[in-house]
């Protein structure tokens, strides 16, 4: 049911705005504390894991 809910257009638009705002806000805090690059590295590694795990299996 949750999965169906997040697919409808208004929810998608809400999530788009939320993700942009959260990313911007968190980055502002991290830049203020000079931890932005470290957080970016952690994010890149996490994204790599997500993408690698999400790809279809090869034969």
């Amino acid at each position: 049911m949750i999965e169906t809910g997040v697919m409808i257009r208004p929810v998608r638009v809400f999530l788009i705005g939320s993700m942009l705002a959260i990313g911007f806000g968190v980055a502002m805090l991290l830049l203020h504390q000079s931890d932005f690059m470290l957080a970016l590295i952690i994010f890149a590694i996490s994204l790599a894991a997500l993408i690698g795990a999400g790809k279809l299996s090869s034969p």
Partner: protein
Amino acid sequence: MSAILYIAAYVFPAAIAWALLAFVFRPLQTIPFLLPLLALAYALWYGLRETLGIQRQLLGLIWQVPSGWIKGRPAMIQTLIWGTTLGPGFVTKNPYAGMWLLPLLVALNHNLLTTIIVAMAVGSVHAGARAIGVLRNRRCIEMDVSAHLRIMSAVSRWQYIDGLALLLAAGALGAYALSLLGAHF
């Protein structure tokens, strides 16, 4: 073949390939604002497209490992070929736009050693996750013949999550780009 060896066959070539990529991006790091703005534009564009479900085109090569490379070879050699070609993630099909944001994020580090280490970490993690995914999918298909249909339908769900991650990155990169332009928070 043990799972550890299978995963290693993916991880080691990927770490080397991504380390080499760090050198490819080195010249671009000298151009002010180029990489942050490129990464921001990419993340925003494809984040929107994937989250709205309008990204249909695969962002990658449609090249596949020729069967002649695999047929008749010992299992270990076949695994090494799969690992070398699929582990780094640069060739063959790629359903997720986030894949091509990764090199841009890695290259945002200006220190060469840091860039190489981060690149190797990103490549290794991608390859390891890919290998584990392959092993898991094989086990699912062995237990349930129709599992491949569920695996295929999961791609759109992963794309959606990838899109949200790209938007998160876009927001962060927007703040970073503003800070480079002199905005103070």
